[in-house]
C-alpha cells in the first residue's frame, strides 16, 4: 500500500502523455492525484505505514526503506492535498497544460519520496530527482527571464546537493555503517571530530533548500518567472524541504556538531525571518512578495528546528506542513487574480501581477475574503493553522535563547505589515489609473461609484476556484482550532529527536 501511495503519481505521469484526448488526460491526472490523497488518508487512519525495507543495491549498501509515520505522514498528506489542487487548477485553467500535469505528478512522487525515505541515499535520490520536474516546469512554462532564474536555481541547489553527497560518502566511510538505512546509520555513530565537517555538508544542501540567508538568492526570481497560474510555485513551495532534512537527517546524525553550532544558526534563521519580511514589504510584484513571505516563514521553521527544543521543533514541523497549504493556496489565488487582469510583461517591476490592482474587493468579494483568510493564516492569527506553529516556535526558542526569539517575533509583526499592505493595495484601494481618471472626470466617477469602475469589473469565483480555495481555507481553519491530530503526529518524533541531545540544549 505504501508503495502504491508513493508511485501512483509516477505511473499516472507515464500514462498521461499517451492519452490523446485532453478531457480524458486531465480527468486521469485528477483521478490519480485524488486516489493518492485517498490512499494517504486511509493509511493515516491506521497511524501511517510501518517501515518497509528491501535491498536495492546490496553492493553499495543502498536499501529501499520507506515508512510513513509521524512528521512524514503529515507532510505527505499536505503534499498529496496540494498536488491535487495543483492538478485540478492546471488541468482546467491552464492552456496547453498536458506537460504541466505530467510534471506535477512526477514532482509529487519525488516529494513524497523525500518525506518517506528512510535510507540516506534513497533520500538523496528523491531530493535530487525533484529538481528535474521543477526545472522543466520553469523552462517550459516560465516568463521571459526564465533562463537566468533556472540557472540560478539549478546552481544553488546542485552545489548544495553535491556537498551533501560528499558528506553522505563521509557518513558511510567514517561511521562504518553496513548500509545507508537510517536505523543502521544511527547504530554506528559518527566520531565527534568529523561530525562538524559532515554536518556542514548536510547544512549546505538544506540551507539552500530552506532557504536561509545568504543562500536564498535563487528564490525570488524562481517564483517570479514561474507560470502566472501559480501551479509551479505550489510545487516549488512544497519542495522547500530543508527544514525536514535538518529535523530528520542532519540533527539525529550529528548531534554534537548541532549542539556546537546551533546558536549561530538560530541567529541566521531569525535574521532571515526579519530580513525577508523587510524586503517583502517593499515588493511591488505579487509573486516576489509571496516568495519573500515564504522565505520569512522558512526562517521561522529553521529557528524552530535548530533550537534543539521539543516544543520549537514541533512548531517548526507544524508550520512547515501548513505553510505548504496557505502559501500554495495564496500562489493559486494570485494566479486567479492574474488570470483576471492583463499581465503586462513589460511592466517596470518585472514579470508578473503587480500589487497595484485596486478595487478587486468590490466585484470579487469572495475571492477577496478567502484570500484574506489565507493571509491571516500566513500572519499567524490565532484560530488559523499558522498560529500554532509560529507560537510554538517562539515559545520553544525563547526557552533556549530569549533574544533570538524576540528578534524572530518581530518578523511576525512585519508579516502583518507586508501582508495587509499588499492586500489593501490590491483588493481595497482604488487603482492608480482609476484614481487618475476619476479625478479628471469627477461626474462619471460619481455616477459609476468607485468600486465598480468599468475597467475593474472582475468576475468572482468560478466553481473550479471554489474547489481550490475553499478546502484550503477549511483545512487551515480546522487545524487552527483543532490541531491535536497534527500535533499528535509530530510530537513523538520531536521528543525522539531530543533524545539524541541527551546532554540538553545549550
Amino acid at each position, binding site marked *: 500500500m505504501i508503495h502504491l501511495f508513493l508511485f501512483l503519481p509516477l505511473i499516472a505521469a507515464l500514462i498521461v502523455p499517451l492519452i490523446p484526448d485532453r478531457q480524458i488526460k486531465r480527468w486521469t491526472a485528477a483521478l490519480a492525484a485524488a486516489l493518492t490523497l485517498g490512499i494517504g488518508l486511509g493509511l493515516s487512519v491506521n497511524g501511517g505505514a510501518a517501515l518497509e525495507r528491501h*535491498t*536495492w*543495491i*546490496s*553492493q*553499495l549498501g543502498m536499501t529501499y526503506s520507506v515508512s510513513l509515520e509521524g512528521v512524514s505522514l503529515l507532510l505527505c498528506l499536505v503534499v498529496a492535498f496540494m498536488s491535487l489542487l495543483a492538478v485540478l487548477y492546471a488541468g482546467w485553467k491552464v492552456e496547453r497544460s498536458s506537460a504541466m500535469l505530467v510534471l506535477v505528478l512526477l514532482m509529487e512522487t519525488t516529494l513524497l519520496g523525500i518525506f518517506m525515505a528512510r535510507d540516506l*541515499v534513497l533520500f*538523496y*535520490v528523491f531530493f*535530487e*530527482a525533484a*529538481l*528535474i520536474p521543477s*526545472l*522543466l516546469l520553469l*523552462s*517550459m512554462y516560465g516568463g521571459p527571464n*526564465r*533562463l537566468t532564474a*533556472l*540557472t540560478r536555481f*539549478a*546552481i544553488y541547489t*546542485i*552545489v548544495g546537493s*553535491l*556537498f551533501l*553527497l*560528499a558528506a553522505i*560518502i*563521509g557518513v*558511510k*566511510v567514517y561511521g562504518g555503517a553496513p548500509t545507508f538505512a537510517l536505523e543502521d546509520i544511527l547504530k554506528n555513530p559518527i566520531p565527534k571530530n568529523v561530525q562538524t565537517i559532515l554536518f556542514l555538508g548536510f547544512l549546505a544542501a538544506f540551507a539552500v533548500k530552506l532557504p536561509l540567508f545568504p543562500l536564498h538568492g535563487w528564490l525570488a526570481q524562481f517564483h517570479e518567472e514561474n507560470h502566472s497560474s501559480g501551479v509551479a510555485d505550489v510545487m516549488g513551495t512544497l519542495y522547500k524541504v530543508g527544514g525536514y532534512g535538518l529535523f530528520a537527517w542532519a540533527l539525529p546524525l550529528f548531534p554534537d556538531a548541532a549542539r556546537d553550532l546551533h546558536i549561530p544558526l538560530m541567529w541566521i534563521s531569525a535574521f532571515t525571518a526579519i530580513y525577508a519580511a523587510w524586503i517583502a514589504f517593499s515588493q511591488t510584484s505579487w509573486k516576489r512578495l509571496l516568495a519573500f513571505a515564504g522565505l520569512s516563514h522558512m526562517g521561522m521553521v529553521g529557528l524552530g528546528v535548530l533550537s534543539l527544543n521539543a516544543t520549537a521543533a514541533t512548531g517548526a514541523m507544524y508550520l512547515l506542513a501548513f505553510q505548504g497549504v496557505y502559501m500554495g493556496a495564496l500562489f493559486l489565488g494570485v494566479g486567479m487574480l492574474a488570470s483576471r487582469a492583463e499581465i503586462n510583461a513589460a511592466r517596470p517591476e518585472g514579470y508578473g501581477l503587480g500589487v497595484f490592482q485596486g478595487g478587486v474587493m468590490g466585484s470579487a468579494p469572495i475571492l477577496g475574503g478567502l484570500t484574506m483568510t489565507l493571509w491571516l493564516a500566513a500572519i499567524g492569527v490565532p484560530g488559523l493553522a499558522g498560529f500554532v506553529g509560529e507560537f510554538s516556535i517562539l515559545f520553544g526558542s525563547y526557552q533556549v535563547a530569549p533574544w533570538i526569539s524576540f528578534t524572530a517575533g518581530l518578523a511576525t509583526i512585519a508579516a502583518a505589515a507586508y501582508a495587509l499592505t499588499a492586500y489593501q493595495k490590491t483588493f481595497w484601494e482604488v487603482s492608480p489609473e482609476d484614481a487618475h481618471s476619476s479625478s479628471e472626470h469627477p461626474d462619471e466617477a460619481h455616477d459609476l461609484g468607485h468600486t465598480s469602475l468599468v475597467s475593474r469589473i472582475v468576475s468572482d469565483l468560478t466553481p473550479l476556484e471554489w474547489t481550490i480555495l475553499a478546502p484550503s481555507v477549511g483545512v487551515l481553519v480546522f487545524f487552527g482550532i483543532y490541531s491535536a491530530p497534527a500535533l499528535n503526529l509530530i510530537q513523538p518524533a520531536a521528543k525522539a529527536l531530543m533524545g539524541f541531545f541527551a546532554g540538553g540544549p545549550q
Partner: protein
Amino acid sequence: MLTFPDVSLTALLPIIISLVTACIATLGGLYTSRQNVAYIGLGGLVLTLISLIALWNNNNTTSFKGALLADNYAVAFSSVIVIGALLSLVASLDSARKAQLNFPEFDALLHFGITGCLIIAFAGDLVVLLIGVEVMSLASYVLATFQTSRRAEEAGMKYFLLGSIGSAILIYGIALTFGATGHFDFVGIATAIAQKDFANNTLLVMGSLLMLAGFSFKVGMAPFHQWTPDVYAGSPTLVTLFMSIVVKTAAFAGFVRVFQVALGSSDAWQVPLQILIGLTVIVGNMAAIRQNELKRMLAYSAIAHSGYLALAMLSSPQSGSNALVFYLLSYTLMNAGAFAVIGAIQKDDRGATLEDLRGLFYRRPMYAVAMGLFLASLAGLPPLGGFIGKYTLFSAAFSNGYVFISVLCIVSSMYALVYYLRPAMMMFMRAEGGEMPLQLEPRPSSGVTIALSAVGVLLLGIVPGVVLGLLEGAGKLLQAML
C-alpha cells in the same frame, strides 16, 4: 621434437572473430554493398559478444604464456567495448550515408579498430598492449579523416600527429620499465617490483611517469588533452561517437591494467596521477562551460570524465575496477545516445549548436526526452546510471584514503552541471519567433541506438545491482588470483 606453442584458442576466440569480421569486411566490399557489409559486421560483433559471455568465469585462461589473459575483467571491458561498437554500427546504418561515409572501407577500419581495442583488453603484457594500442590508434586516425571535407582531414591529421607523439612516449615508458624490471608481462613486473632487493627504482619511476603521460594522451587527460576538442568536433559525428566510447574504454582498460596490476606496489605514480586528475577535471569542466557548439562541449565533457574515470586507479584494485567498468558501461550508453541524437538532428557534420536545440521538444519530443536523459546522466543526477557510476567511483577513491581529490572531483561536478543543464533546458523552451529549421528525416537506426541507450541508462540507474553483482563476483576471482 617441436613443442607446440601455448596457443589457447579459447582465450583468443573473441579477437579471432573480430579479426575475421574485419577481413570479411575488407574483401566483402568488392562483392557487395556497404549495407550488407555492415550487417555482416553486426553479425560478427554479436558472435564476439557471445564468445565473450562464454569466456566468463572461465578460470582465467591464458594464451601465449600469459601474454593474453582472459580473466573476468578482460571479458567485462571487452563486453563494454563490443556493446559500444554495436551501438555505433547500428547508428551508422542510416547516418553513414548522410556523413558521406557510405563505403565498406569504413566498416573494415571500424572492425580493425575494434580488434585492436579487444587486444588491449585481453593484454597480459606490455608488448601485446602496445600492439593493441597501435592498431586501435591507426584505425581511429584514418576513421577521423575519412570524410572528404577539410575539417575531417584537419582533425585526422591533428589526431595522427599528436597521437603518434603520445604513442612514442608510451613506447619509451614501456622500454624503460622493461629495463628496470626485466619483464614485459604484468605479473612479472609486479613480482619484480615487490622483491626486497629491487634496485632500479629511478628507472622504474621514469618509465611509469612516461607511461602515465602516454596513456593520458590516449584517454585525453590534461595537460595532454589538446587534441580532443579539435578531433571530436572536426570528425564526422558518427566517428566521434565511436571514438568517444570504444577507444576510451579500451584505453582505460589498458591504463588500469598497467597501473593497478603491474605497477600496483610502486608508489611513484600516485601523486602525479592526482595532479593530472585535478588539472583534468578543472580544465575540462571550465572550458566546457564556454562552448556553444555541442560536439566541442561533449569533447570537453569527455576530458572531464576521463579525470573521474582515472580515480579508479586510486582505489583498491577490486572496488576500483568494478566502479570503472560500471561507469564505462553507463558512459558508453550516455555518450552513444547523445552523439546519436546530435547525428540525427545536425544539418552537417559541424554538429549542432545550442540554438539548434532550442524548442526541440516541441518538434521531436522523443529526441528531446532522450537527450535530456543523457545530459542528466552525464551530469550525475539520480536516478540515472551516471549518478551510480559517479557515486561508486568517488566513494571507492574516498574510502581508499584519497579524500582531497574525491572532494575536488565532486566540486568540479557542480559546475559541470551548468553546461549540461543549459542544452537540456533549451530543448524545452519555446523560441520566440519560431524555431530554426532542422533536417529531420526519419532515422530508424539512429532511433534504435538512442532508444537502447536511453533504456540502458535508466536501468543502470534504477537497478544497477545486476551489473554490480556480476562485477563483484569478478572481483572475488581476481583477488583469489592475486
